[in-house]
C-alpha cells in the first residue's frame, strides 16, 4: 500500500504568531515554524499501517523553501521519502488553490491512501481533505479517531460532538485524523540521521502542470483583506452568591458549552 501523508508547516501555536502587515499572509519569518500538530498524528497513523501491511509512506508538503526543515523532521519519524511543492507563485494561495496543487501532486504519486490532519493550526479551514478527494474523485473519510485497514476496505470511527459514526470506503481514499487517533512516536536518533539521506524531491508548478495564474494571490478565490489583534482580555464576571450561585455557574458553563 502506498500512503501519502500531507504535512503542513505552520507557526508554532504555542508561541507568538502574527500575520504580515503588508499582504496579510502568515508571518513565517518571525515565527518558530513547526509541523502542524495534527499532521504528526497522520504520520504516526501512516507508519503504523505500514508496519502492519507493508508498503511505502511518502510525505507531501506545499510550502516555501524553509518548509524543508519540517519535512526532514517528518522524515525522521520514519516515512520513506518526501515531495516538496515549492514555487514563488504559490504565495497567498487560498484553500481552493492549495487543494488543486496537492491533488496534482498526489496524482503523480499513484497513492492508495492519503492521510492528513483534520485541521491546520494556522488556516484552520478544515476543508483540505474534502477538496482533495473531490478533485481526485475518491472517497473522503474525515475526522477519524480510529482507522482500520482490511485489504482495500477502510473503516473509520468519525469523531462527532455526541459520539462517533462508523464510515467505510474503499481505497483509494483520503482520511483526515484528529489527535485522539494515536500517540505519535518520537523521532529516533537513527531516524534523525537517516532523514538526511532520504529522497526529497522538490517540484514546481510547472512540474505538476498547474498554471501559476490559478494559484497564489492571482488565483485566490478569497483574500484576507484586513486583520487586527484580538482585544485584550476583559475582566471576568463575578457571580455574587445570593443563594443561586451554583445555578448561575452552571448556566454560564453550559452557555459556553463547557458542560
Amino acid at each position, binding site marked *: 500500500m502506498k500512503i501519502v501523508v500531507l504535512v503542513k508547516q505552520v507557526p508554532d501555536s504555542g508561541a507568538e504568531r502574527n500575520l504580515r502587515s503588508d499582504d496579510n499572509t502568515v508571518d513565517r519569518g518571525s515565527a518558530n515554524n513547526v509541523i502542524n500538530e495534527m499532521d504528526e498524528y497522520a504520520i504516526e497513523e501512516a507508519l503504523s499501517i505500514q508496519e502492519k501491511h507493508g508498503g511505502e509512506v511518502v510525505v507531501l508538503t506545499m510550502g516555501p523553501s524553509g518548509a524543508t*526543515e519540517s519535512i*526532514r*523532521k517528518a522524515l*525522521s519519524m520514519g516515512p520513506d521519502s518526501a515531495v516538496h511543492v515549492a514555487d514563488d507563485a504559490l504565495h497567498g494561495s487560498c484553500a481552493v488553490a492549495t487543494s488543486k496543487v496537492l491533488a496534482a501532486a498526489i496524482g503523480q504519486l499513484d497513492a492508495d491512501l492519503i492521510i492528513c490532519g483534520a485541521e491546520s493550526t494556522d488556516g484552520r479551514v478544515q476543508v483540505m481533505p474534502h477538496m482533495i478527494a473531490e478533485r481526485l474523485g475518491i472517497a473522503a473519510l474525515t475526522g477519524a479517531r480510529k482507522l482500520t485497514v482490511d485489504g482495500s476496505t477502510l473503516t473509520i470511527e468519525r469523531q462527532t460532538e455526541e459520539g462517533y459514526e462508523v464510515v467505510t470506503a474503499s481505497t483509494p481514499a483520503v482520511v483526515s485524523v484528529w489527535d485522539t487517533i494515536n500517540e505519535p*512516536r*518520537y*523521532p*529516533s*536518533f*537513527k531516524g*534523525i*540521521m537517516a532523514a*538526511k539521506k532520504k529522497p526529497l524531491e522538490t517540484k514546481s508548478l510547472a512540474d505538476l502542470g498547474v498554471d501559476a495564474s490559478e494559484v497564489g494571490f492571482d488565483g485566490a478565490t478569497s483574500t484576507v483583506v484586513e486583520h487586527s489583534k484580538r482585544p485584550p482580555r476583559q475582566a471576568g464576571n463575578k457571580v455574587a452568591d445570593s443563594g443561586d450561585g451554583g445555578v448561575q455557574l452552571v448556566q454560564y458553563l453550559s452557555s459556553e458549552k463547557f458542560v
Partner: protein
Amino acid sequence: MADRVAPLDLIDVDALHSEEELQVRDVVRRLVADKVRPYVADWYERGEVPVRELAKDLGKTGLLGMHLTGYGCAGASAVAYGLACLELEAADSGLRSLVSVQGSLAMYAIWRYGSEEQKQQWLPAMAAGDAIGCFGLTEPDHGSDPASMTTRARRDGDDWILTGVKMWITNAPVADVAVVWARTDDGINGFVVPMDTPGVTANTIKHKLSLRASMTGELVLDGVRLPADALLPAARGLKAPLSCLTEARYGIVWGALGAARDCLHTAIDYATSRVQFGRPIAGFQLTQAKLADAALELQKGYLLALHLGRRAELGLLRPEQVSVGKLNNVREALAIARQCRTILGANGISAEYPVMRHAANLETVLTYEGTSEIHQLVVGQQLTGLAAFAS
C-alpha cells in the same frame, strides 16, 4: 518589562550546532518533559525509579549506547551525545546516570573489549532497553584507588571463579548483566557476569540523601563460576576500565550543565514573580549579581564541553582533557545550584522545586567517576609533570 533571554541564549550557543544536533536535543527534551519531569520528584522522594519502563522508552529513541556504532546502536556524534546528557540531567542526575552507566560503562566495555559473541548477545538487547547493565569497579575499601582492588578471579579448569564485593554500583539492583573488574594472575581483567548466575547477589543501598532517583547497589560475588568466554578478551589492565570511565565522564561534562541550567531557569522564574519589599526579588542588585554570575559560568562550561566534544569527534580528545571538563563543570554546576537555592528562600528546600534535588544530586556527581580531588591531581600532574596520587 523588556523580554527575558534564556541564560544559554545570551551568547547564542545554538549557532554552534548543526540542525541534526539540535534535533537530537529537542527529541530528548520532549521525551524528558513527557516521561520524566512530571514524576521525578516523586521517584526521588520514594527512592524508587521504574528503571525497566524508562529504559524501554530511552531505548526506543536510541539513547542507550547512542554514541556507539552497530549492534542496534544509533552511532550519534559526541556532541549529540553530550546534548542528550545535558537534557537528561536537566531532569535529574539519576536519569543521566542510568543512561551513562548503561551506554558508556557497561555497553562501551563490551563494545570495545568484548568478543563478537558477547557483543551479539548483549548489545542489541541493551540498546533496546530490554537488558540493563551495570559496571562494578569500586569496592567498599577501594574507591579512588581501584588498582588495589581485592575482588579476585581464579581459574578452575577452563572456568573462572569470581569472589569479592563491589560497592556503590549504579543499576545493580535492577541489572541483567554486570561488567565486573577483578584481579587475576595477569593483572586486572573484565568479566561479563549475567546477574542470574549462582553466587551473584545485589543488595540495594538505602538511605541515600543524593541521587535518590537512581538505583544503587552492593554487588556480592560469592564463588561465582563463569565459563571461559565470560572474560572480556581485549581488556588488559586498569587502562580498560579507566577508558570506560573517560567515556562516561565526558557525558557528565555536559550533563552537569543540564542540572545547572534547570536550577538557573527555576531561579529566574521564581525571582521575577516573587515580590518582597514591594518589588520582584529579581529587581534587587544582589539577586541579579547571583544570576549574572551563574549564567556566565554556565556558558563558559558549555563552551568547554562543546570544545571537548568537537575534539572527540576528531578522535583527538585526551583523558586529562575530560578531567578538566568534569572538574570544572561539576564544581560550577554545584555552585550554581547552591546559589540558586538561596534565591528560592524557603521554597528552595522544597521538592516542589527541582533546585535542592539537583544540588543534592551534584554531590554524588562531584564524587563519582573520579572525585574532584582526583581530577585536580590529574590536571596538576599535567602542569607539573609530578604525580601526587600517592606518597
